[in-house]
């Protein structure tokens, strides 16, 4: 095998390994070093749509979406109140089009921090369902939203559960 062929084989091996890694789960630590989670295979961070207050990930299916928003000047007592105050606006006549509350807010322990979760549907460019987690700690907070087209949402929840199960906080609670 001449040197040209050897180089070609080497490049192919490198490309194969890179492609294989791209399909594997990867750990993601947010730029503010507040949390960490495992990004499931096929999910891609969208740098162009993210900024210092918002992280956006696209899933492997056409409508799958995960986005995480930071809040720094919250004035709420806890995650449950945070959730309810937002829902009041989402469900108002000026709120999300055709808003439908699918699951009432529930409070649970999310990786050691009290959080509130809610599920709702609305009509954007298409019919969508979102499951949103609200976390408030002092004046800081997060919302973690998993969103998909209404017909596919139930099937996609495994992805969200995977993300939440891998979640850990990088800051002291």
């Amino acid at each position, binding site marked *: 095998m001449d040197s040209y062929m050897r180089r070609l084989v080497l490049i192919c091996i490198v490309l194969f390994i890179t492609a294989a890694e791209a399909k594997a789960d990867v750990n993601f630590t947010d730029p503010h070093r507040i949390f960490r989670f495992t990004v499931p295979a096929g999910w891609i961070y969208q740098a162009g*749509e993210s900024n210092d207050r918002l992280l956006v990930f696209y899933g492997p299916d*056409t*409508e799958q979406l995960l*986005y995480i928003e930071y809040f720094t000047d919250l004035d709420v007592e806890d995650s449950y109140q945070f959730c309810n*105050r937002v829902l009041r606006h989402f469900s108002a006549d000026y709120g999300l089009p055709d808003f439908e509350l699918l699951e009432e807010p529930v409070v649970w322990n999310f990786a050691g921090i009290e959080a509130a979760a809610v599920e709702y549907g609305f009509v954007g*460019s298409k019919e969508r369902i979102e499951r949103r987690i609200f976390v408030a700690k002092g004046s800081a907070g997060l919302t973690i*939203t998993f969103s998909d087209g209404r017909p596919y949402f139930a099937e996609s929840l495994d992805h969200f559960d995977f993300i939440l199960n891998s979640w850990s906080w990088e800051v002291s609670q």
Partner: protein
Amino acid sequence: MKILVVCLVGLILCSAVTYSAQSSFMVHFERAVGKSAKEQLTAAYGGEIQVSLHDHLRLQAIFERLCSALDSSEYQYSLIVLASGKVNAFSLPGGFIFVTRGMLKLIGDDDQRLAGVLAHEIAHVEKKHGINALMRQLGLSVSVELGKRVLEVPTNQAVQIASQALIEVVQSGYSREAEFEADLLAQYYLVQAGFDPTGIIHVLSDLSVYDREHPSGEVFRSHPHIHARIGHLLSTAGSFWSEPQLVEAQELQFSSKATDPLGRFLVEACASESNPARLTLYDQQNGQQVTWFDPLFVTELAFAPDGALMATAVWNQVSWDVWLWNRYGSVVERWHLESADQIRNLTFAPDGKKIAYTRGSGDQVELWVGYVGEVSRIKVAEIPLVESLVWQVGGITAAAATGECYRIAPPAVVPVKTADPIPVVIERKPRLSPEIDQGLKDSVRLTRPSSIEL
């Protein structure tokens, strides 16, 4: 003769009615006429639309702040967003304020501009410009005064006639005097509500540019006299700054020499016989003199707090201008100040969006503030001859040649904040791939995806 009699009777009746009863009736009448015209105008502008959740809350936050800043008002205000893409905003008697989707698009996310538009329309209502113009048009003043006593409430027919005429009045625009009056009152409302009084100037400037680029004339028909209004507003905006106050100078750090916050450029004097006060820059990174200013007579230089911009005072052989440069030596703005007096003491505001400078010579000089990227250059004070300026969060402090220090504070601007935290709701953007068209002779043509809207 008959008309004269009616008028006389009307006057007698009017004089017998208490002021509060008249006022209450007129408010009722205005509301009824405004409401009737509202339906027709809303339909004419494509109907009312619901803006997105965030835009709605932002609009309401600004609108409510302005309404609550009114000293006392007879009206209950409501804000209506119209579907039309035409750039327009208007008001109707009784407190109906309209803004089109086109106007919101033009304003973008600048809260100060939006507040300026809304404050102007509120001022039209408060000053009764609509109802007064209507009365003039219909000659209704006497008949309505009579009608209110006879009928107690305006008849539907009277309201309908009045509302038709009102629509014509609103669409043809108010008089020059009414516009000036609404502008000045709007500036007052803006300051009372914690907004920048220059917001209305900047939106008028946008309208002027828009009209130049879209010469349908629709903007000038409904917003006449734009250039004169901008001139008026510029002359009054400085009055909302505080009077110069004597302050202690101990804590202030005045610097006579500009310093690059990023540490690359050094400002050096480059005096010659023809240009005794000329400045130049030395690039420490490349170890050489920067040649950008070579053909110019630059006497003052200030760096923006983030170092992204430099402001220079430039003599253009006729008058003094301020030029803004980026760090690559390009002029990004030229402020044609047409000042015969030398521009001195250039100083950026802490936010980097405004620049203070002095004009004039002799014992008294004028302190001016210019807005980066905007048309506003406003005179904010006259103060004794200044040696240097410093602009801190609380305002501008001027060190006078006499050794005294003066503080001039801008009107307080309070950021717009919605009462509740509202997270974003986003959707996935479609993946766009070029469409492949198999051409002749084994060639492949890639074309723009059909789903892209241009």
